[in-house]
């Protein structure tokens, strides 16, 4: 094994090899994470409603997601007749790009990071805006009124919630003085930023839940009114890719929250990656928990909440933090 690695390092150089291995690792992580989260979502839902949820396939129903994915893989890909073919095929592809790119810069452990880019957080934020685009294209290309309404809602929602999300992260960036995620984690050696900036964390988390279109902000796919929103016309593997992206986005939002506010991989006794995963999956659990405790908000409530409360509060927070740092 070490010989193979040595030959590979000589052939393409250490940096390139690191990136390639990192990307393979990221792909594996994305798939396993999505599989586990479909299982976890059912289990959380079941136990919160005093049901048992999946339990037949494997111990505790753990093999259930694999059975589901085999079913999705085997399904026929149905393309409705009147869709805009180019946009319809392009949408699942575009929604998968940000998912892969974001993981490249997230530090999972002290040395466990595919690439430490000095504008790290900007990479995540820049590429995550592509997921709105994919929802828009999917809704438009499907040529279906429910899809289009879902897409329109998604675009309006994302414009509204991107601003507080960026502002609350900017506060931490100002405190650290760096855009690199690794520097931000290292700056939390003494104290986690959630203790300095609890309001920024709350705003980030609310905006993050809205950005991933989860309950209580799941208006783009509101099942009870829009069938399934933007992915109504998608079936089989294309539908699965949308779900893979959604579950990965939940993890990215939680991972960024962990990195920015909860000290990332820092923690006593256990290795860094364990701490990172514990913190991240705790936040993921909270997001799953939201789904079964909060009713869906109305659309005007959703937009008013962002424009009238979250954005002014995060602006004030930013100004106050800047002032205190300068004193």
């Amino acid at each position, binding site marked *: 094994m070490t010989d193979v690695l040595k030959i590979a390092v000589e052939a393409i150089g250490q940096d390139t090899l690191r990136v390639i291995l990192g990307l393979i690792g990221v792909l594996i992580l994305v798939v396993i994470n999505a599989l586990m989260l479909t299982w976890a979502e059912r289990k959380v839902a079941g136990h919160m409603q005093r049901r048992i949820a999946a339990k037949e396939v494997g111990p505790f129903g753990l093999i259930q997601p694999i059975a589901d994915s085999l079913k999705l893989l085997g399904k026929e890909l149905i393309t409705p007749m009147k869709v*805009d073919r*180019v*946009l319809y095929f392009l949408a699942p592809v575009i929604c998968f790009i940000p998912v892969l790119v974001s993981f490249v810069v997230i530090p999972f452990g002290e040395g466990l990071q595919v690439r430490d*880019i*000095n*504008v790290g957080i*900007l*990479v995540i*934020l*820049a*590429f995550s*805006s*592509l997921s*709105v*685009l994919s929802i*828009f*294209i999917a809704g*438009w290309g499907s040529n279906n009124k429910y899809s*289009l309404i879902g*897409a*329109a809602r998604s*675009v*309006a929602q*994302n*414009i509204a919630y*991107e601003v507080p999300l960026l502002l609350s992260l900017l506060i931490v960036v100002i405190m650290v*003085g760096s*855009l690199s995620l690794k520097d931000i984690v290292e700056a939390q050696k003494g104290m986690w930023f959630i203790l300095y900036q609890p309001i920024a964390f709350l705003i980030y988390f609310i905006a993050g839940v809205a950005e991933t279109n989860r309950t209580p902000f799941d208006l783009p796919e509101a099942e009870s009114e829009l069938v399934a929103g933007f992915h109504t016309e998608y079936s089989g593997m294309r539908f699965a890719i949308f779900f893979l992206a959604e579950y990965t986005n939940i993890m990215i939002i939680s991972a960024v929250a962990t990195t920015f506010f909860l000290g990332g991989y820092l923690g006593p006794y256990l290795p860094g990656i364990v701490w990172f995963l514990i913190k991240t999956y705790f936040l993921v659990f909270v997001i799953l928990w939201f789904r079964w405790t909060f009713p869906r908000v109305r659309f005007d409530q959703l937009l008013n909440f962002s424009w009238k409360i979250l954005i002014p509060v995060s602006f004030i927070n930013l100004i106050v933090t800047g002032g205190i740092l300068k004193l």
Partner: protein
Amino acid sequence: MGAAEIIFIIIALFTMIGALMTVLSGSLIYAMMGLISTLFGVAGLYIYLNAPFLAMMQILIYVGAVSILIAFAIMLAGPFTMKPKEWTTVTKFIGSIVVSVVSFVLVFRAIMQTPWVQGKIKNFNVTTKDLGRIFLDRLAFPFEIISLLIVIAIIGAIMLALFSRRQG
């Protein structure tokens, strides 16, 4: 031709095909997709020129915000699928050709007359800190002028919205 040139040509082609699609497509939504690929291509050129901060800002602002706003506007305006030849008149055609030729000549002359630095620049490493300092130091005046422009645009948009609401 080295790998660097090949990458440059691929990015440039991607940018130009996107630009052509934006101008020539009859469907607004495809024009938007063309615009997005052009903006991505320009971001690629920034990375090629070793300016990752600028590239990420390009994607964040133009792809993430401006294109999404364009998408929003398209949704409010409704479907628009006429072919260009159905609404292009002779005067419009001639006018567009005159405008594009004149602007091409102007930009081309400006590029040719600029004395470009030849050869390799060593240690070209501008950080975000340097950029921020320049904005609040040497380029403070143009920076403030731009923010004034944005304020005027916002006030204009609010006025338009208020008046149309009163009339409706």
